[in-house]
């Protein structure tokens, strides 16, 4: 079933995607990892999946998380605070 999620981008991913947030059509059950790989190809993200953490609805989660639609998804590149 087709549905959609809201993807928010930060840092280099925001610059490469050219947007801070975007609604993306998905197939229900598509994992966060599958979505990242799709977006990485589309936007030329240089980071491999192993460099990325995933947050769903503002909480860290597994990259295997199966999306059902309506989630807020953030792909977190390596952090550099402090």
């Amino acid at each position, binding site marked *: 079933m087709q549905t959609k999620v809201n993807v*928010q981008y*930060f*840092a*280099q991913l*925001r610059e490469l995607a050219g947007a801070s947030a975007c609604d993306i059509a998905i197939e229900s059950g598509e994992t966060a990892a599958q979505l990242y790989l799709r977006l990485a190809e589309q936007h030329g993200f240089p980071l491999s999946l*192993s*460099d990325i*953490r*995933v*947050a769903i609805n*503002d*909480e*860290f*989660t*597994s*990259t295997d998380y199966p999306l059902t639609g309506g989630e807020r998804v*953030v792909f*977190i*590149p*390596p*952090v*550099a*605070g*402090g």
Partner: protein
Amino acid sequence: MASVECAIVDKSLDVVGLRESLPPHADCGGYVCFEGHVRDINHGRKVARLEYEAYDALALKEMRRICEEAVETFGVNWVRVHHRTGMLTIEEPAVMVQILSRHRAEAFDACRYIMNELKERVPIWKKEFYADGTTNWTRCSHAHMNY
């Protein structure tokens, strides 16, 4: 009175105001404060300024979790962490950690723990603007955990 305060702020950190606004702490003999300032060189490259960007909602949650871990692990009485976002100039404070505890040892330990974990876990990013006009999103750590 163990308590935790965290904030992400887009204006200059008021380090004097933060120092002067400690909670009542008659039972605490140790106060440790750490400030991280913007350095003008990184990996041999001359840095002109920095931009910090945060995923505010999750960054605040994770900062609070780290501070609560520090309270639990080291038994300190009070922790406050303020982190900047936006454009920062050289020598400007980017982060301030303040800790009150009965004795100094646990406050030093908690401060080191909080800064180490913050750099590894909190979704905040840093873009360096170099003197030669180029830029780079720096990569202080591999953010991967056991998820």
